[in-house]
């Protein structure tokens, strides 16, 4: 990697920003020289990122920088044209979206994609689909394993709903929840798939400052409770700077800076990407 090697304040490569507590443990995600091309457009190019076991990392950048494309590459919605994604040390080349999910990657969406017509609990149960297993036949014949499976799913769903104190909303249709609750439900649904790495695509979008602050605390709490890594895309800098340990800045599909919140805030390249180049005074 030859990015910004002259800018000394940006640690390269990124594993240098893995938090202390995760050093020595195998990393959860390693993206090497990841790239995807749509026709002539390199939407993402030479993207490198390492995320520690329990790291909360941020992916920021101006609109159209390719952040969501990176999420789609990591979750195998797109197959990369170049580079590899190692999840828990295993190469995900050729894997399907479902395989990647089963291996421990889950996500939320920029524009909420809940199953609107289903209840809150059923949305979470979809996330639990591969966690609580019983066969088709026990399901149809209502054998004991069906009841046990259903009971386990219900308990697990309630435990998850408890994180956001949403237990009493279990039977409400997801589509009729208020906006903030829908965002929270999406996080829970993703958590239900038992991920090692949780990808949050603009979790604070449309939230007010109080809600954002609460969300920030919850993200940290989820990490502590579930001992998972979280990578989030966010435009709300107070959230990013407040909760992310490592931050990666993307512009025009390329990583322009990596580092801690403090390092990123003072990086001239980042400031330029967001605000434009400062005119030199005469």
């Amino acid at each position: 990697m030859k990015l910004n090697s002259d800018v000394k304040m940006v640690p390269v490569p990124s594993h240098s920003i893995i938090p202390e507590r995760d050093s020595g443990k195998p990393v959860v995600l390693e993206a090497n020289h990841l790239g995807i091309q749509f026709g002539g457009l390199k939407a993402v190019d030479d993207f490198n990122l390492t995320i520690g076991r329990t790291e909360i990392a941020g992916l920021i950048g101006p609109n159209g920088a390719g952040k969501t494309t990176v999420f789609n590459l990591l979750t195998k919605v797109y197959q990369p044209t170049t580079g590899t994604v190692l999840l828990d040390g295993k190469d995900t080349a050729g894997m399907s979206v479902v395989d990647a999910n089963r291996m421990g990657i889950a996500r939320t969406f920029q524009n909420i994609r809940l199953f609107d017509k289903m209840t809150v609990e059923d949305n979470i149960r979809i996330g639990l689909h591969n966690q609580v297993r019983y066969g088709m036949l026990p399901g149809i014949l209502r054998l004991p394993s069906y009841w046990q499976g259903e009971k386990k799913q219900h308990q697990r769903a309630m435990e998850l709903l408890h994180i956001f104190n949403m237990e009493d909303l279990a039977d409400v249709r997801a589509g009729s929840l208020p906006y903030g609750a829908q965002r929270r439900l999406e996080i829970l649904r993703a958590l239900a798939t038992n991920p090692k790495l949780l990808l949050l695509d603009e979790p604070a979008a449309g939230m007010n400052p109080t809600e954002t602050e609460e969300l920030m605390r919850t993200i940290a709490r989820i990490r502590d409770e579930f001992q998972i890594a979280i990578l989030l895309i966010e435009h709300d800098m107070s959230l990013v700077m407040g909760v992310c340990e490592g931050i990666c800045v993307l512009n025009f599909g390329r990583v322009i800076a990596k580092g801690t919140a403090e390092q990123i805030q003072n990086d001239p390249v980042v400031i330029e990407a967001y605000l434009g180049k400062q005119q030199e005074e005469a």
Partner: protein
Amino acid sequence: MIPFLTNLVNGISLGSVYAIIALGYSMVYGVAKMLNFAHGDVIMVAAYVSFTATQYWGVPPLVSVLMSMVVCTLLGITIEGLAYKPLRQAGSLAVLITAIGVSYLLQNLALLIWGANPKVFTSVVDFGGIRLFGGELVISDEIIVTIISGIAVMLLLTWFTGKTKMGRAMRAVSEDKGAAQLMGINVNFTISLTFAIGSFLAAIAGVLLCSSYNTLMPTTGSMPGIKAFTAAVFGGIGSIPGAMLGGLLLGLIEVFGGSYVSTELADALVFAVLIIILLLKPAGLLGKNVQEKV
């Protein structure tokens, strides 16, 4: 009074058959977002399997029903795997035309195997039926079995889609395939399963229908198929309670229209009602009106 009750019972019975077929149409549409026009012909295959088993192999009627269920379930999975799965990324028009192609293929295969002459289908049930009101109202055994099967299918399916893991997966896939996949739902398996269930239902409907009407030809499935499709649209395609309601109403309209208005106009009446309903409620009776987002 008695003619009215007779019509009512007949209407519910015919409606149950339509509902069972419509459920297959509607579920497949909901999950795979395609109109499976070969669905009606699976009904015909079911009837032929049962017919062949009882007439040529001397299998007891009930066992022959089980056989046609198995054959049709496998047929549904095979059709989906061979004809529709390769077109998963193709436009809806290509899938629609393929479905029509599969429909003709099944009809012509039946023509090849069983010939063009109508077969006489002997009813698979035979316990004499019941007489009510001092023998004035006769309810045949076929009608009783049809109505009971209809109720059983509706209850089981409502429970299956609402309360089991795979049922939930089906609902999730029908709402948002991409999101379901990202939550670890195997979409291809879910679609195959939907076809299996739909074809299983078609087998039940085929045997019931031919038990009531006794004639069997390679084209037997097309008219009930189209009627059931109408019923599914009538109730709101993609909606399970909608298919049930649509099927029942369609059966009632057809029978009552045929007896009180004109036998010749019964079918025309059915479609006229469909047009009126669709003008008033474009998404069908229980369909959700999806507003275009601007």
